[in-house]
């Protein structure tokens, strides 16, 4: 199926113009009358009992309006538990907006101060006296699950939050019969999304009308509307969540945070607007983190390089609480489902354990679990090829799923439609002359330059279907709705349930509507990020915008187009089928001759409806809805190739080339898709080389500033070549799959394999992320 332009064109974004002029409106840019500012007293200890709170002096400080403890909020806001109905064995503790008896991570909010200004609120927090009683700290999952470990949540009777095991085939026999078995222990240290704009909100509760409006830097306004209504006991139709411009999100802004919930409860308690903006230290202490997994993995090969069996053991933790409302189970669950997925293999076993311990909550950040599954799989493939004396590219070619194997349900339970692993590799090798690379690599080694190449093949699970959270019991919409309204002047207003934090989905939807209805881009204005005005949708997360909201926009566009042609048919005394809409005018479908402008149709529809006979569908406000059926995920696939040099004296890594080949089905806007991929790669490189939360042995975070938590900056990053195959999904008409995770998913694996390839003359094998200079030098035996 071919779609009409502007679908498929590289067009710039309308929203960008405003942002470039400094006219963005982020939540901290908004000031409301009588607004108060919130600051928190946070636990300085990873684990401590809160014995006594003395806020008498603090309450008398200038500008202070109210000081709140957990007890003050108990009657205002309900508690919650991060459970998931699809994982009924998972245990999740009760969490409250402010910690009441015990603080379970360093940075957990314990007391909130509302004052005239943020500075005055912070002044007062320094005068709040808390009598802490330190408790033993559980800082890593292994210790937390040990026999001697006390339960950090007594109600759960142990720190094991979740255990699952998948087994297919006869794994032990396959390993016993294998020609070669490779095994590695991988460490993926902890990092996070680091949106440049921190989390923040203004809660505005009006007691007179029992209405709550929340302006929030968030990805999912409808999800939050539901949560605030239920947890604060306000009728949902009285709750409105507005997401203005959002300064980056990456998954860390689609959760409920206890400190944010406190700010909203404070507004309800005080009957005044309350603003809370996390500062950078609070962001590092309190944002959802990701990774922190230890994966022990082995892979069995035949002499020819066939993958016979895979065995995965993932140990991770949720921090002190399971994130809400999605639960923290997904990262581990994705890992055990995705390992080995590009390859034909019959015997598969994977188990995961998730613990609770004394660190901040851990959960969903861009590319949940995927980079880990990819790095583990692809590194084992490289190790196996090396042991077998085979070319790692040849092993991949041999073992990749082929077209004739598909559709297939992977041993991990993922249904694959038509993945293009071979096509992606072919395209990569058209761009990279591997023989020339190997020859150059050998020449460079003689000069002491250690250059390596790393391949990483992956599947990215996009556009989650309604079954995942629907069956899980969470109120998280996986369906999308698009409302279109033809204005009397002929322009189209579009309202979508998806949200845009910079990805450009607003523009993608604008292109779909313009292309399907048949009007110029400028005639379509997309509105998003408002739970009251926009039709119900899931917001943006998990690479869902184009695939789900795009399809809903397509359906709405078809309806509007049909109704416009119905009215035009009446006016022209012609059959609607003989007419078309092109360039914003109703034309003859065959000759292309212009009949009338859309404004003429709209004028009749709006103001002279009596001229349209009964029974003619003539609504000029229409809704299109899309919910996928019978699929949990919409898998896309791709390949990363990294070429880099490792300096064996400094341990520094310098990129020489970086290539991504990805297949996200139909592409709505190639430029925006490429930029999504590039941004994702750089985030993935951050996790591969730089980003890591460092804790001391007592569980204290050591690097809570941007000066010592390293993020990728312009000088170190490579230019990134991006190529696409387009295998549209047959499950929708548009055929789009997601792309938001694709850049991040493959980067850790590609960098890992490239670094190990570069240093292969040294019997080097490093599999702990990030691959920092000290780790590289230690593995080389230099320090």
């Amino acid at each position, binding site marked *: 199926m071919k779609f009409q332009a502007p679908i498929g064109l590289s067009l710039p974004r309308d929203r960008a113009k405003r942002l470039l*002029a400094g*006219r963005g409106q982020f939540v*901290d840019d908004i000031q409301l009358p009588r607004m108060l500012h919130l600051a928190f007293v946070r636990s300085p200890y990873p684990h401590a009992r809160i014995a006594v709170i003395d806020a008498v002096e603090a309450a008398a400080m200038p500008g202070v309006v109210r000081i709140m403890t957990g007890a003050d909020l108990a009657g205002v806001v309900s508690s919650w538990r991060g459970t998931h109905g699809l994982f009924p064995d998972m245990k999740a503790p009760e969490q409250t907006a402010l910690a009441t008896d015990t603080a379970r991570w360093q940075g957990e909010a314990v007391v909130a101060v509302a004052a005239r200004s943020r*500075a005055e609120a912070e002044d007062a927090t320094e005068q709040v006296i808390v009598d802490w009683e330190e408790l033993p700290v559980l800082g890593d999952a292994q210790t937390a699950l040990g026999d001697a470990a006390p339960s950090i949540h007594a109600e759960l009777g142990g720190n094991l939050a979740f255990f699952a095991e998948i087994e297919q085939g006869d794994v032990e026999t396959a390993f016993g019969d294998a020609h070669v078995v490779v095994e590695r222990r991988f460490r993926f240290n902890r990092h996070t999304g680091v949106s440049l*704009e921190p989390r923040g909100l203004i809660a505005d509760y009006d007691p007179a009308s029992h209405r709550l409006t929340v302006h929030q830097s968030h990805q999912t306004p409808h999800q939050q509307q539901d949560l605030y209504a239920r947890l604060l006991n306000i009728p949902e139709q009285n709750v409105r969540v507005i997401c203005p411009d959002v300064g*980056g999100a990456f998954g860390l802004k689609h959760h409920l945070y206890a400190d944010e919930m406190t700010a909203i409860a404070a507004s309800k308690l005080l009957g005044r607007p309350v603003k809370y903006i996390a500062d950078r230290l609070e962001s590092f202490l309190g944002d959802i983190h990701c990774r922190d997994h230890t994966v022990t993995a082995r892979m069995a090969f035949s002499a020819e390089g066939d993958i016979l069996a895979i065995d995965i053991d993932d140990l991770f933790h949720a921090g002190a609480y399971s994130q809400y409302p999605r639960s923290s189970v997904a990262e581990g669950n994705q890992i055990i489902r995705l390992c080995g997925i590009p390859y034909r293999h019959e015997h598969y076993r994977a188990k995961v354990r998730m613990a609770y311990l004394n660190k901040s909550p851990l959960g969903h950040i861009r590319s949940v679990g995927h980079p880990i599954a990819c790095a583990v799989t692809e590194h084992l493939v490289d190790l196996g090829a090396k042991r077998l004396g085979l070319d790692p590219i040849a092993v991949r070619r041999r073992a990749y799923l082929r077209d004739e194997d598909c559709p297939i349900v992977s041993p991990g339970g993922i249904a694959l439609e038509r993945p293009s692993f071979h096509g992606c590799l072919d395209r990569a090798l058209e761009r990279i002359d591997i023989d020339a690379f190997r020859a150059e690599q050998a020449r460079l080694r003689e000069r002491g330059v250690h250059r390596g190449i790393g391949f990483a093949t992956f599947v990215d699970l996009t556009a989650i279907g309604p079954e995942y959270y629907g069956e899980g019991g969470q109120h998280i919409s996986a369906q999308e709705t698009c409302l279109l309204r033809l204005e009397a002047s002929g322009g189209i207003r579009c309202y979508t349930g998806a949200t845009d934090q910079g990805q450009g989905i607003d523009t993608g939807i604008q292109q779909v509507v313009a292309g399907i209805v048949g009007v110029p881009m400028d005639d379509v204005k997309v509105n998003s990020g408002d739970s009251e005005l926009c039709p119900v949708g899931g917001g943006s997360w998990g690479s869902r915008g184009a695939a789900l909201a795009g399809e809903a926009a397509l359906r709405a566009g078809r309806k509007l187009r049909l109704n416009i042609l119905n009215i035009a048919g009446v006016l022209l005394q012609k059959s609607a089928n003989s007419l078309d809409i092109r360039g914003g005018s109703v034309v003859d479908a065959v000759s292309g001759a212009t009949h009338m402008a859309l404004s003429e149709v709209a004028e009749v529809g709006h103001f002279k409806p009596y001229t349209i006979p009964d029974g003619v569908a003539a609504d000029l406000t229409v809704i299109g809805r899309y919910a996928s059926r019978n699929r949990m995920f919409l898998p896309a696939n791709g390949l990363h190739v990294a070429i880099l040099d490792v300096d064996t004296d400094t341990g520094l890594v310098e990129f020489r080339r970086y290539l991504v080949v990805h297949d996200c089905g139909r592409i709505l806007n190639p430029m925006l898709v490429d930029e999504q991929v590039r941004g994702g790669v750089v985030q993935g490189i951050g996790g591969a080389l730089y980003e890591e939360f460092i804790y001391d042995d007592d569980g204290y975070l050591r690097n809570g500033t941007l000066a010592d938590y390293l993020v990728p900056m312009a000088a170190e990053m490579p230019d990134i070549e991006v190529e696409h195959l387009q295998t549209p999904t047959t499950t929708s008409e548009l055929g789009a799959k997601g792309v938001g995770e694709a850049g991040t998913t493959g980067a850790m694996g590609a960098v890992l394999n490239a670094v190990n390839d570069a240093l292969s003359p040294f019997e080097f094998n490093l599999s702990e992320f990030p691959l920092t200079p000290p780790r590289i030098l230690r593995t080389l035996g230099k320090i």
Partner: protein
Amino acid sequence: MNEPVKNMRIILRVNGEAVEAEVPVRRNLVDFLRGDLGLTGSHVGCEHGVCGACTVVVDGAIMRGCLLLAVQADRCDIETIEGADESGRIAALQAAFHRRNALQCGFCTPAMLLTAAALLAQNGNPTRDEIRECLSGNFCRCTGYQAIVDAVAEVAEVVEAKA
């Protein structure tokens, strides 16, 4: 002993307009610009001088608005993104950023533009490496930087061709 000074009166020019204000001595420049003057195009990302989102022009030089106190800007000439936009002096950069989608969320963008403009004012024909080096004090989490480098390089070529 005297009471510590809590507030001071400052006089400065901001985007060409005379401003006189009484400010707490502890208020930093970017909070003053944003909160007192409503110039919300300058953003606050880290408050410790690393991310660069608060970059403004002080007496012709780009500076971190979070590392200066408002009182240090007394008798200074300040330009923010709002002023640079309205004067048209960064129009070519804005257009190139737009065309190449050299921004996603846009939170780093005003500072990125002012930094890029400062580079081009000093060096009309920077290499890609020089552009990357110059921008390496401005954190962008969304783009991966390449489109930003492309946009600055494109404007540099035009500037060079005209010179």
